[in-house]
């Protein structure tokens, strides 16, 4: 007899032949498996919805719905489920279809206790590996962020500092600078790493749903609230909640966030009962919160509570020395993922990337590398393979003797082109106000 399992594994066995169900139960229960049985597919679908199942064992041929339909349904809806197909009519086509639909093992009836236990062992091993892979967290020492520049070294020091404390953190930086990666690094390097990290984008959830998503609701709180539901703060209890784009939170939500920060308590929507949580808050924004406070758009008390540790992330144009490292990293990652031999950038292409404004920051560079790995056939990326906005910057490469005003005009045009003609954005990148930019453009037109 097989040794008893140390952790409980629940098996759902589905077969219209009650004798087979009996055999499965008799073989698996002594080995430590908990076995639930049913005789048809609709009942199995209900059980899968209602209770956590680790492994599904299903017969192939059943009246009305067959086992293949069940396997396909379960595979699509429960990615963590192990599946075994059993059949009294084994065939190559049936076996191929079963595995193609998601079955991990295929057993022909009648099977012995040893065969069944061996199949279960294989499936549970595979399941454990799958779950382990999914739960894998960055290793200590991994920041998930790359850079050798002074600016990034300062960020790494702040991450270390924030990870050692439990105070709230505010990460500020333009889109694509890696704010969520920094938040994850702080969480996984800190004492809360074993508890959940929950990421919420305040702009991705409609205002009307945000409160119930964050704090949860009770059954009947509003139309459609069919059951009690925990909010993100509760899910992240003991861990960290990452509130991205906090600058977009309404004043109403800001008031509720302040309450939870002050008292570590909140009400679920539709409930008058106080809930207590211990959730660390890391917030991020691409907006200037201090300016918003001055304009009355962001609560000053919330700003100071969030801003205990302030981590400003530099835009990529302010850490150009990191571009080559990032290019190499993304290139090799994508080539490996695509299963193609590695490719490199020509010196001039790399130079062009070095002077480009990168309004979309690291994310823009990452997307470009992904595109180049797919699009470029040869072993090397040339300037001609780059998007027009980047090719343009090649004009300002060293070697050509030009006047300062020519260089300025070229640079302004390159930045404008890279942001799709958005003058406010271009002025921000150039470090001048919109009016100055307008004047410079006017001067250019006059000179031409």
């Amino acid at each position: 007899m097989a040794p008893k399992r140390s952790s409980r594994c629940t098996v759902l066995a589905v077969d219209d032949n009650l004798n087979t169900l009996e055999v499965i139960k008799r073989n698996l229960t002594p080995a430590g498996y908990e076995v639930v049985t049913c005789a048809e597919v609709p009942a199995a679908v209900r059980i899968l919805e209602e209770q956590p199942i680790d492994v599904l064992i299903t017969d192939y041929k059943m009246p009305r719905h067959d086992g293949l339909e069940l396997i396909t349904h379960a595979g699509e809806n429960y990615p963590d489920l192990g599946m075994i197909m059993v059949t009294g009519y084994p065939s190559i086509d049936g076996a191929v279809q079963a595995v193609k639909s998601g079955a991990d093992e295929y057993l022909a009836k009648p099977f012995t206790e040893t065969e069944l236990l061996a199949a279960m062992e294989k499936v549970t091993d595979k399941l454990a590996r799958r779950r382990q892979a999914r739960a894998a967290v960055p290793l200590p020492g991994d920041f998930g962020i790359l850079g050798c520049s002074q600016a990034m070294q300062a960020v790494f020091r702040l991450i270390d500092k924030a990870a050692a404390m439990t105070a709230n953190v505010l990460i500020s930086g333009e889109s694509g600078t890696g704010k969520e990666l920094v938040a994850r690094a702080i969480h996984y390097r800190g004492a809360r790493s074993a508890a959940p990290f929950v990421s919420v984008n305040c702009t991705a959830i409609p205002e009307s749903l945000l409160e119930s998503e964050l704090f949860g609701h009770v059954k009947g709180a509003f139309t459609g609230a069919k059951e009690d539901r925990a909010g993100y703060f509760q899910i992240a209890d003991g861990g960290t909640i990452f509130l991205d784009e906090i600058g977009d939170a309404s004043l109403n939500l800001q008031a509720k966030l302040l309450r939870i920060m002050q008292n570590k308590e909140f009400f679920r929507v539709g409930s008058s009962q106080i809930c207590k949580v211990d959730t660390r808050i890391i917030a991020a924004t691409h907006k200037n919160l201090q300016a918003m406070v001055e304009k009355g758009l962001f609560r000053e008390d919330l700003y100071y509570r969030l801003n205990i540790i302030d981590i400003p992330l530099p835009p990529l144009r302010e850490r150009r020395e990191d571009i080559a490292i990032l290019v190499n990293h993304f290139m090799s990652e994508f080539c490996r993922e695509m299963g193609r031999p590695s490719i490199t950038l020509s010196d001039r292409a790399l130079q062009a990337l070095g002077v480009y404004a990168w309004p979309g920051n690291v994310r823009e560079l990452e997307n470009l590398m992904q595109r180049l790995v797919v699009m470029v056939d040869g072993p090397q990326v040339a300037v001609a393979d780059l998007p027009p906005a980047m090719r343009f910057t090649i004009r300002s490469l060293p070697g050509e003797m030009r006047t300062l005003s020519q260089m300025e005009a070229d640079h302004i045009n390159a930045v404008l082109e890279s942001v799709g003609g958005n003058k406010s954005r271009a002025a921000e990148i150039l470090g001048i106000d919109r009016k100055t930019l307008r004047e410079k453009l006017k001067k250019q037109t006059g000179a031409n």
Partner: protein
Amino acid sequence: MTKIKVLLVDDEPSFVETMVKRLHKRGLEMLTAFGGQEALALLDSDDTIEVVILDIRMPGMDGMQTLKEIKGRHPLVEVIMLTAHGTVESGIEGMKQGAFDYLLKPCDIAQLLDKVTEAAAHRRQHQERIYKARIQTITLRKP
């Protein structure tokens, strides 16, 4: 739409010749190899091959071993196993190793053509997804 580039791997020259003629006539761009090693060398040097039709019983490196190597080195290439000696066990093994499908010889040419088209579409979709997807986590150590 570009032509689907297919590599047919089988140690039987007469079978290869007939299949290449028939599939070429139906619009596929065909390449051939008479063994696993030769197939791998071709795949290593040509990353535009989208689908491999692979025999299982071959001298030297057999089809199952070749399949493992192909999926290890070129995970996006879709492989259709085609064999005259099919068994339930090898069908399961092939699918578990990542084959797109497992067919038996003699195979209806229309069915094979459908499978090749499906496999190529699957590969192109996969490639498109990778192209669009943004890597969620990067796990590089601090330099």
